[in-house]
């Protein structure tokens, strides 16, 4: 049973525009959420996270929004750059737990 879902396998955006990547989860016990970026043949790298006590966290061009009632989070990248082209995974965990649950990823292509 997939507890974290990324329903868009791919997304194409023009350079300079906003990229919005979406993620849904089903387990209301999750209270910490993370986004990772992955290039081919490399391990995922941590991008940004958010605790369930917040609804927004911003780090430079990256902002993560959390809507707990909808069990939905999104990653905004503004402005998008060609180097942002990668697969993005969202993940969820419980602060008291040891397991991280990942979505299936969204492949972002930023067109120059």
């Amino acid at each position, binding site marked *: 049973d997939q507890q974290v879902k990324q329903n868009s396998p791919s997304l194409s955006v023009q350079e300079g525009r906003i990229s919005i990547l979406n993620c849904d989860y089903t387990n209301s016990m999750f209270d910490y959420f993370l986004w990772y970026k992955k290039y081919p043949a490399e391990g995922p790298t941590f991008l940004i*996270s958010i605790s369930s006590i917040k609804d927004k966290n911003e780090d430079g061009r990256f902002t993560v929004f959390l809507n707990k009632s909808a069990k939905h989070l999104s990653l905004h990248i503004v402005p998008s750059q060609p180097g942002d082209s990668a697969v993005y995974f969202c993940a969820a*965990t419980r602060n008291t737990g040891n*397991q991280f649950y990942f979505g299936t990823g969204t492949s972002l292509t930023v067109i120059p």
Partner: protein
Amino acid sequence: SQTIHQWPATLVQPVGSPLSLECTVEGTSNPNLYWYRQAAGRGLQLLFYSVGIGQISSEVPQNLSASRPQDRQFILSSKKLLLSDSGFYLCAWSVRGTLHFGNGTRLTVT
């Protein structure tokens, strides 16, 4: 600073052969350690995790096993590989809520 080493980077093995992938973490103590697999076109599947030496939790029943002989060493093994074991294997560690990955091993079973 913390670093994670995972080797080999690529591996081609015949069906029925054994497997041993090793992962070590430096710069931290008593980390949680993880093995994930990414099959072609799919997401990251948690295979095993460990909260301490000798403590292994398995998420998916399969012909793979894991061991943690030392605090910062995590090993993924198989006695006999199947074609379906092909994939990209990732070791990861966490201490306070964030997961950090190694560079992965691309395993091709032929």
